[in-house]
């Protein structure tokens, strides 16, 4: 088979490439150039990841290319990321990148170049079964549950899943590192990156500020912090810098821990309260996709994961066209608009979408009426 391996320069995609090569596939390595980086004196302009990916390909004796998706990335990830923060949301740019770049633009390009499939170093598995005489594919959580990345891949449909390979989805991270050592890959001991790849020094606030300045929104200016009775108890730097469930950085001394319960971008107001008051029992989800392509008829019992490190919670999900309604068995804290809600049947992904709104318990009666979120 002809396979194009998307290589980030990390150990996971390096091993994915090595395994496919070992299995005898015709393999091409590709690293995506996503940023129009300024380089030159006095700025780091690191291309280390690209160099690492190239070095791994050279070790494996396979070709490597750098593919430029900077324009697509700017349009579909960077700008929406900044705008989402400015409107008081907490976006997940990795999901957007997977959806618009890796498994759309790159996949199309790979197929045009003659690839039968694209492989990545994601920790995820693809479950294939026959249902009513048709082959149906679903994402299955990785064997290594600590590393599972199905949350950032939920939008993959039947067409994409039939053209994807996740060679390390059945391995644990230590096994992946062992394999990298066995293949003598330069990236075997390389640290993992946990930060957002395009935000320098993990300073999201600084990034939003530098990109968002000049936009006609109040969310970057000083505004009031209110308690849940509506009393002003302090000041914040602009709602764009905060996310629901956040505890630190509020600068309040009210004798007990205060959590961000709700964000109102229209009035640039931050509402704080007890942790439990920030929990939401229900949520609306937008841009909903269903893995089989068909929305379920009626409510579906499943578990719903609402951020990367969240243990999926039991819920009932009801499809309402491109939206879905989620009712959790137990209210969940920090249900942050902009993050994704992914629906699981056991360890199989059945669908998901982007959190549109949820009303925290502590804000419920007050928002029924004029002050809607």
């Amino acid at each position, binding site marked *: 088979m002809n396979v194009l391996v998307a290589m980030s320069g990390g150990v996971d995609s390096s091993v994915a490439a090595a395994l496919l090569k070992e299995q005898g596939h015709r393999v091409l390595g590709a690293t995506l150039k996503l940023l129009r980086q300024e380089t030159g004196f006095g700025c780091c302009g690191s291309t280390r990841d690209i160099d690492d990916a190239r070095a791994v390909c050279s070790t494996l004796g396979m070709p490597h290319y750098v*593919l430029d998706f900077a324009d697509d990335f700017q349009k579909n990830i960077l700008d929406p990321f900044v705008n989402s923060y400015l409107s008081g949301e907490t976006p997940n740019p990795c999901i957007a990148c997977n959806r618009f770049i890796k498994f759309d633009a790159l996949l199309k390009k790979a197929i045009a170049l003659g690839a039968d499939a694209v492989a990545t170093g994601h920790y995820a598995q693809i479950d294939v079964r026959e249902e009513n005489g048709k082959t149906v594919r679903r994402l299955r959580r990785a064997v290594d549950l600590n590393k599972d990345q199905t949350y950032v891949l939920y939008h993959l449909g039947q067409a994409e899943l039939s053209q994807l390979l996740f060679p390390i989805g059945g391995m644990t991270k230590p096994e992946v590192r062992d394999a990298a050592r066995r293949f003598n890959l330069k990236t075997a001991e390389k640290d993992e990156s946990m930060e957002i790849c395009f935000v320098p020094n993990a300073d999201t606030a600084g990034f939003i500020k530098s990109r968002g300045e000049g936009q006609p929104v109040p969310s970057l200016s000083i505004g009031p912090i209110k308690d849940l009775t509506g009393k002003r108890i302090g000041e914040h730097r602009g709602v764009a810098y905060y996310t629901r469930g956040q505890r630190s950085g509020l600068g309040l001394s009210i004798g007990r821990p205060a959590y961000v319960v709700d964000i109102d971008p229209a009035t640039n107001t931050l509402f704080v309260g007890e942790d439990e008051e920030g929990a939401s029992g229900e949520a609306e989800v937008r841009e909903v996709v269903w893995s089989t392509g068909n929305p379920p008829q009626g409510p579906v019992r499943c578990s719903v994961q609402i951020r990367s490190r969240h243990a999926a919670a039991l819920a009932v999900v009801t499809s309402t066209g491109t939206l879905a309604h989620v009712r959790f068995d137990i209210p969940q804290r920090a249900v942050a608009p902009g993050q994704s809600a992914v629906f699981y049947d056991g360890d199989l992904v059945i669908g998901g979408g982007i959190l549109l709104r949820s009303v925290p318990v502590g804000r419920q009666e007050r928002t029924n009426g004029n002050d809607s979120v």
Partner: protein
Amino acid sequence: MKPIYFDNNATTPVRAEVFEAMAPFLAPDGGFGNPSSLHTLGQQAHAAMESSREKVAALLGVADPGEIVFTSCGTEADNMAVIGAAFAHREKGRHLITSAVEHHAVLHACDYLEKEHGFQVTYLPVDRFGRVSPNDLRGALRPDTLLVSIMAANNEMGTIEPIQELGAICRSAGVLFHTDAVQSAGKVPLKLKDCPVDLAAISGHKLYGPKGIGALYIRRGVQLHALLHGGAHEKNRRAGTENVPGAVGLGAACAVALKEMSTDEPRVRKMRDRLETGLMERIPFVFLNGHPTERLGNTTNLTFDAVEGESLVLALDQAGFTLKNDALPGLEVSTGSACASGLLEPSHVLKAIGVPMERIHGSVRFSLGHFNTEADIDTALDIIPKVVDRLRSLSPIWEDRQKEKV
């Protein structure tokens, strides 16, 4: 399967004659001397440098080898001409003239002078074939113009500029004239001593010499500031211990070029023409960028409508992968200039000749060379239509084009 190399404007392989000439100066027990040393070993190195200088002068048609200064590359030679002239003649004025299709070695040097040193630069437009108009140059000259820099031939399209005429205008106006001859040297005869040219830059690795060596022709009497300051090397014009093996290689490459140009140029041109016509016959919606006749014999720049240049370059390089046939060789070509590739910046050259943006992205440069054979052309004419066909069959833009036709 050995790949077919059609990217000779990016760089060329070192010819055997060049390699052999250089070898004694790189060998562990070889002529490693410093040309500035007084002892025998130094004198041998010095003699080798001077002999090479003569060969470079001969290729450029220069009477006095003393007018040749070795540099580390074509970019350094261009920088030395543009920046060195600007600094040396700033009392005359602050104005330079160049064209919109120059190599970045000239454009970015001009940009630097504008941004950091308060010079003014006029960028002359070009016609749809990439030629600068002598009338435009006349109109742009000012009393404070100190330098005009126009390339001899364009690296992306091969278009040859009317250097003789442009130089004559400068000469009669008393303005220095520099030409970036990096792509011309070795491909077309140059007789700089009979040309109204004051400065000319060349590069070793574009004419089957090694990388890391270039040269600047500086007409006797022309004042420049040096870029590098240190020892009295190159008669105080370029400090730094001489790259003896590189200079020897450049000299050898120039000698081979001078000897073979008259037979090699028509042979390469014939292959280029067969490739160009063959592709245009076999593939619909292909357009030539550059001048139909006033053009280097080795270069063809084609736009493949509804194809992304980056994908085409990659698919040709991996023809065996793309067409699922391991017996096929890769074809090595490029989109525009290698120096700018990897950036997907739309080519400033194609922009300047008015190619619409979507067509710029579908443009690919084929630059042939000494080592290409008629068999290469046969293979290319077999592979390229298939690859273009495949890319188009998956292109939504191509689908729209087909509908437009109906």
